[in-house]
């Protein structure tokens, strides 16, 4: 498959142990794919290791959060005029072999966003029960709002096209953890979303999110964000020009 018009964005925060292995695996799968690691102010040598493995690295001067790091990658991709974006986490959760599927679907199907869902596939994904509960609640809510079955709104394993890229580099993007709220937002902006099954593992590097009081805050924030999407002026960004 031609991968010249695609960029893989990997936001990384203190992932010096995992990043090298992941890059090698990706290069085995898709040798010509351009890869950008966004080093989100890591205090270890994530950036030098990534550079050593021959990928582009954008280093942020300090930690700005997963969402903001990802958005930096979007801005970079937009400057370089990439047509398709792949994104995956640097912690070993996402299986590099799935990238080909994501890319194929975003290129060939009439969709703007492809979400890799761990719950559509037969995988043994392990999560603590509060986290699992949160995921179920928000996948149900999201499905209800966008009138389409969404099983894994939390997934950071995604592919998108340049139209969504343009949308995400505008104001509308959360700094911390893009989640169900972003999917609802995408729906209201008129983008077409598709979920495909992917293999996902429990993160090697535990304690990133959803620990302690965080699940509670997460639930609160997600409700607030979704309600705010309804209260704000709808971003009819793309729907008008949606000729497909």
């Amino acid at each position, binding site marked *: 498959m031609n991968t010249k018009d695609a960029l893989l964005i990997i936001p990384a925060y203190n992932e010096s142990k995992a990043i090298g292995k992941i890059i090698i695996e990706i290069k085995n799968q898709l040798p010509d794919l351009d890869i950008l690691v*966004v080093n989100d*102010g890591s205090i270890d040598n994530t950036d030098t290791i990534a550079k050593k493995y021959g990928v*582009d*690295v*954008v*280093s*942020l*001067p*300090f930690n*700005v*959060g997963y969402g*903001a790091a990802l*958005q*930096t990658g979007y*801005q*970079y991709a937009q*400057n370089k005029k990439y047509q398709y974006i792949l994104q995956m986490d640097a912690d070993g959760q996402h299986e590099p072999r799935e990238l080909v599927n994501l890319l194929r679907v975003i290129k060939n199907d009439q969709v703007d966003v492809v979400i890799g869902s761990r719950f559509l596939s037969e995988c043994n994904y392990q999560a603590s029960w509060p986290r699992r509960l949160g995921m179920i609640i928000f996948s149900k809510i999201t499905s209800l709002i966008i009138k389409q079955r969404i099983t894994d709104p939390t997934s950071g394993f995604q592919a998108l096209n340049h139209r969504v890229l343009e949308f995400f580099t505008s104001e509308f993007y959360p*700094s911390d953890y893009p989640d169900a709220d972003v999917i609802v937002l995408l729906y209201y902006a008129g983008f077409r979303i598709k979920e495909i099954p992917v293999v996902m593992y429990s993160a090697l590097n535990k304690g990133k999110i959803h620990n302690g009081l965080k699940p509670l805050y997460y639930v609160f924030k997600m409700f607030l964000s979704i309600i705010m999407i309804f209260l704000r002026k709808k971003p009819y960004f793309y729907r008008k020009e949606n000729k497909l």
Partner: protein
Amino acid sequence: MTPHQKVFALITSIVILLFILELVRKRKIKEEYSWFWLLIGLVIFILVIWYDSLLFVTELVGSETPMTTIFLFGFLFLLFVNIHYSVKISLFTEQIKKMAQKIGILSKEIEDLKNKEKEK
């Protein structure tokens, strides 16, 4: 209001005013952030020398005593200041995020340009 209370309140208001003005003079507080602190000093000053105004406001809001009025408005004032700061902090967070993103991308571009130069 006893003369004792009056003197104490006057001194307090004058100290607040002078302290804030001094901080502004030394550029420790920007002018645009000093006005509400100057306002509170001024309000205390006015309430002391024109005690009837406090009694009038007390009547207006239905407080039992003038003291309650002072605490009520003091509390509301601090609430307002804190909300104002939350708005400012949100603005700064957004600006800092954008700046960090820009710095990251620009550094990368400079690095790429330098590498290109070397290859030539």
